[in-house]
């Protein structure tokens, strides 16, 4: 699979003029000394992994365990926070600090941790139900705030842990135990939702494409702000084959749209390549390469502050998975909530001449209107 990924945040510096340089996503987090290196084994906990055989979560875990050493961080400065669901068991299997919290609330908990501890690399692991049903509110607010953390949303389009009810990403008409006559609600497209929620980094990857997922993780970690990574994940027990159409080697090329920053949006093999163009009505459609004029060709711009085209790209996806965009949809710089919150405190403390001691505290509680009784 091609993996022309967006560049890191650093290389985008200056693309959005905010008057201040945005640091790298890992700035301020202690790194390993010298050329010390950790391995996948260092990141593997002693707990027995208990997902069902064949679950996509295994491959994602493997990829993450293999990827983490590459960050060069001290592992005690990495924290994984999860909600509830099969996917949310993830932190138990990583030998970092971790919290398996409650259903849907991981983004809020991670916000408190990341904002008060700039020296930590904070990761959230969540499922489609966890992030988009019960935790939908926390997800959108984390995204708009732009707290420096990475959210890995394992989307298996089903409630795995509770044994197979439809989820907010299940396709319409889904037959499950709770929808024997087919689900009737319209699903969320997590990428569209994130873009609508003012996210600064939004990407999508696939559980079994380790190389692609590693690249996305790399860019997400480098991004300063909330990075949302949707990972299509197979649940062989309750929603097997949900992503077969885009995993099948024969169909994959015709369906997967690999987004590459600064490049035309295309799909298909060399000899059957289609190019995304903008019609007179402003719609985005794929046409054979020969019919695509340069003026009409849609060139992906992940760092465009205006999310309209990125949003339009997220909409070429549909339930039939005829065309499914993969990669980084959006990667823009915006000051992060946690940097700003800490900045206000640091400024106040500095202006006052340093941290408050007993005397300053005594002055505070006395207020401006005291009297003395002899």
């Amino acid at each position, binding site marked *: 699979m091609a993996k022309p990924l967006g560049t890191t945040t650093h290389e985008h510096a200056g693309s959005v003029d905010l008057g201040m340089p945005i640091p790298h996503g890992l700035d301020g987090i*202690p790194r390993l000394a010298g050329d010390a290196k950790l391995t996948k084994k260092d990141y593997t*906990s002693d*707990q027995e992994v208990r997902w069902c055989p064949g679950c996509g979560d295994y491959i994602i875990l493997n990829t993450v365990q293999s990827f983490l050493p590459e960050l060069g961080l001290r*592992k*005690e*400065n990495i*924290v994984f*926070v999860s909600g*509830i669901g099969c996917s949310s068991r993830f*932190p*138990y299997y*990583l*030998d*970092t*600090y*971790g*919290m*398996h*919290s*409650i259903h849907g*609330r991981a983004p*809020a*908990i*991670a*916000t*408190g*941790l*990341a*904002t*008060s*501890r700039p*020296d*930590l690399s904070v990761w959230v692991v969540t499922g489609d139900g966890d992030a988009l049903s019960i935790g939908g*509110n*926390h997800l959108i*607010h984390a995204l708009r705030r732009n707290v420096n953390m990475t959210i890995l949303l394992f989307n298996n389009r089903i409630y795995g842990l509770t044994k197979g009810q439809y989820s907010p990403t299940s396709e319409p008409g889904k037959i499950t135990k709770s929808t024997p006559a087919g689900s009737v609600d319209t699903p969320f497209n997590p990428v569209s939702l994130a873009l609508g929620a003012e996210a600064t980094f939004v990407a999508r990857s696939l559980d079994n494409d380790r190389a692609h997922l590693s690249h996305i993780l790399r860019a997400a970690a480098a991004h300063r702000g909330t990075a949302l990574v949707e990972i299509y994940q197979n649940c062989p027990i309750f929603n097997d084959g949900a992503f077969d159409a885009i995993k099948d080697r024969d169909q994959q090329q015709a369906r997967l749209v690999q987004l590459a920053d600064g490049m035309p949006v295309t799909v298909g093999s060399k000899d059957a390549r289609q190019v995304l163009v903008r019609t007179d009505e402003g719609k985005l459609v794929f046409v054979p390469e020969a019919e695509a004029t340069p003026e009409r060709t849609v060139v992906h711009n992940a760092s465009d502050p205006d999310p309209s085209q990125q949003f339009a790209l997220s909409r070429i996806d549909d339930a039939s998975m005829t065309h499914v965009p993969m990669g980084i949809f959006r990667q823009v710089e915006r000051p992060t909530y946690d940097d700003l*919150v*800490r900045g*206000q*405190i640091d*400024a*106040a*403390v500095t*202006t006052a001449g340093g*941290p*408050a001691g*007993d005397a*300053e*505290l*005594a002055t*505070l*509680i*006395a*207020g401006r*209107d*005291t*009297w*003395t*009784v*002899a």
Partner: protein
Amino acid sequence: MEGMSGTKTPLDRVVIRFAGDSGDGMQLTGDRFTAETAALGNDLSTLPNFPAEIRAPQGTLPGVSSFQVHFADHDVLTPGDAPDVLVAMNPAALKANLPEVPRGATIIADKDEFSTRNLSKVGYATNPLEDGSLESWHVHPVALTSMTVEALAAYPSLTRKEKERAKNMFALGLLSWMYSRPTDGTRAFLQGKFGAKPDILGANLAALDAGWNYGETTEDFVSSYEIAPAPMASGTYRNVTGNTALSYGLVAGAHRAGLQVVLGSYPITPASDILHTLSGLKRYGVMTLQAEDEIAGIGIALGAAFGGKLGVTSTSGPGVALKSETIGLAVSLELPLIVVDVQRGGPSTGLPTKTEQADLLQAMYGRNGEAPVPIVAPCSPTDCFDAAVEAVRIATTYRTPVMLLSDGYLANGAEPWQLPEIAELPDLRVDFASGPNAEDAKGAPVFQPYLRDPNTLARPWAVPGTPGLEHRIGGIEKADVTGNISYDPDNHERMTHLRQAKIDGITVPDVEVIDPSGEARLLVLGWGSTYGPIAAAARTARANGVAVATAHLRHLNPFPANLGGVLRDYEKVLVPEMNAGQLAMLVRAKYLIDAQSYARVRGVPFTTAELVEAITALAG
């Protein structure tokens, strides 16, 4: 102000209620009068009372806002049952408050506002200032509005409306003269507030003076009054509300613990002032995050607690309901966390601006599973400071969420506060885990996140960033010692008992019994904000010859170790509460005693009189 003429009558105590439209600035007027009174050295207690609506229609009963202050030359325990003086800025204020003003009391009314239209808005067919219906009261109809406007003739740049707005300062000036209060503090306050707007500043000062001078020159008021300072322990004092004291207590407690305060909160009456106050304390390192909802607020606090901060979340009853699941998680994670519940009338939205104590059982039991949580309840506005420090002690020592149960009366009520010495507050320094605490089977050092301190049963607080202590915690039941997931039945039972034993074993001071005669057979047991009314009622009852003992609980979970013995020492136990009898139920269940409940939920504190009656009846 020097050189005033006329007589000064000494009084030992006065209760004044300022009442007007919510737009009339009655809270400000009351606050300023209180500050002047505090500066004079009187002891005092205040009770603001305002509508839930920000601006109910002008001149209507729902729009009436009031502020009551009780001050004396002796110690004051309550804001007073009934006002000696009612200042009524309009007919609505008169009508809404008259039922609580005893005959013989003084009423000062702004007669300009008693127009036919305003009278009819509140259903007065005739003008009560003129129709004789108030002949049992000392009524002073004063042209507050028009005299204010006249006094401001020198301010042509101000509109009539703007001038009228200064009438609360006229009223304040008049009352300051009547009760011989200094006005320097108010002048300085106005200077600070309106310094940038010289016209508005000048107008307010002029109105204040005009009110004072009116009192001095008119023959309407025969005398002014003096209330000598109350004897108070020597020291430096300020006047403080419960919410402010509670906020400062959290900061001071965290300071003594060497921790940063991280508050996650969602606005809700009457707790929002804690969010506001702490948000202004960045210079003290305080971090506040206004969350998207109450669940996120406590999630933020818990995340920060995992990171080694003093996580705090502040809310009222409806917010506690939303936070319940996360409180349970904190119980399971055994991390320090402070949940502030400033109780208000319930259920549901209930009475947002009124006080109640009906969240006790919610604090005690409002979670799924066996999830014991310590509860601390301050008994007065100033005690909110000490109770907050105590909550920090319990949370950090025992690694547990703590419920701090304040209420609307404490939150907004104010009283003089003798400032504590920061260095004399308890030493709350915490020890974070820094290395392995056990050995594995082969003798190699390991870290066991649920290995407990044998004294406190607290587990280690091992914060991310500490090398070698990487561990995972979660809401699934954990194996004793290792903290690994465990579904073992015996382990679950052991962990349930351990969590309970940890809370039961928290050291709390014994409850103190006050029984001056030593002959009481009736004990009045209170908790939280009923302290003042119960103490005042007991004092009155004793003066009437009734032998009665009192005890007040600040720790509701665990109860003080001596409580059972104390209760059994008395023939009768009366438990006054602003709920339907929640503490009564707890002590009956726990100690098998026949405690009698005196339960009222009117949204206002108990009056001394009703408690005297209840005590006298039961003491029989």
